[in-house]
């Protein structure tokens, strides 16, 4: 498997990471997501990591990069479903994931995105 699928739903892009990513696959996902945001004009990105058993510095940096690039392209990123053991390890490792919004599960993540997009629409109009 050399690509992680990206789904489009309304104004959002959805990604579910279900494999143990090597660095190349993580980098490919980062590039693919950035291109898809630009190509589709998506306003929200939801990344489900509930199946991910490890977030090390490389994967953490990939998530932070996606959030930063999405922000530059006027999209909001939410990372959902981080396992407690992964969260504990990340904090001890010293990775703070700056600029990443998180939610406990997909449902809350979608609500967060809808709220973020709704606010933007109101502000725009």
């Amino acid at each position, binding site marked *: 498997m050399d690509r992680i699928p990206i789904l489009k739903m309304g104004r959002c892009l959805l990604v579910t990471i279900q494999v*143990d990513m090597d660095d190349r696959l993580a980098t490919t996902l980062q590039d693919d997501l950035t291109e898809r945001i630009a190509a589709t004009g998506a306003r929200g990105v939801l990344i489900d990591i509930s199946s991910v058993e*490890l977030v090390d*510095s*490389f994967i953490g940096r990939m998530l932070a990069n996606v959030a930063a690039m999405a922000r530059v392209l006027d999209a909001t990123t939410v990372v959902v479903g981080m396992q*407690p*053991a992964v969260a504990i390890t990340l904090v001890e*490792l*010293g*990775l703070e994931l700056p600029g990443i919004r998180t939610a406990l599960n997909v449902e809350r993540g979608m609500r967060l995105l809808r709220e973020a997009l709704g606010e933007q629409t109101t502000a725009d109009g």
Partner: protein
Amino acid sequence: MGEPEVLPIAQEADVVIVRQRVRARSSELRFSLVDQTKLVTAASELARNALIYGGGGEARIETLTSGARRGLRVTFTDNGPGIPNIAEAMRDGYTTGVGLGLGLGGAKRLVNEFEIDSVVGRGTRIAITRWA
């Protein structure tokens, strides 16, 4: 309970294999999920360092026993350029290359024992141990 095993670290996919084997071995030793995740994450950082900075090397995984306690030790060896100033390299934020610079200091916090031995021009050996 598991013979020592030696895994090559020559390409990115090998980093994934190392962490999968560390996961399997720590699960066999009935490490808690948090302990497994900490050791696997530290192993992932050090395997990547061996590949990127050390130009490749190997990881040796072995079970330790101390009285009733059991632990898992993973030793990373490379024949790379070595680390001139280990104290400086252990600091958070230190990097010489493409990494985040969290590798060594972060990995050390995730394990119970951390030994580093590096000779400039010869290579680096880092052993990490986590006890169940």
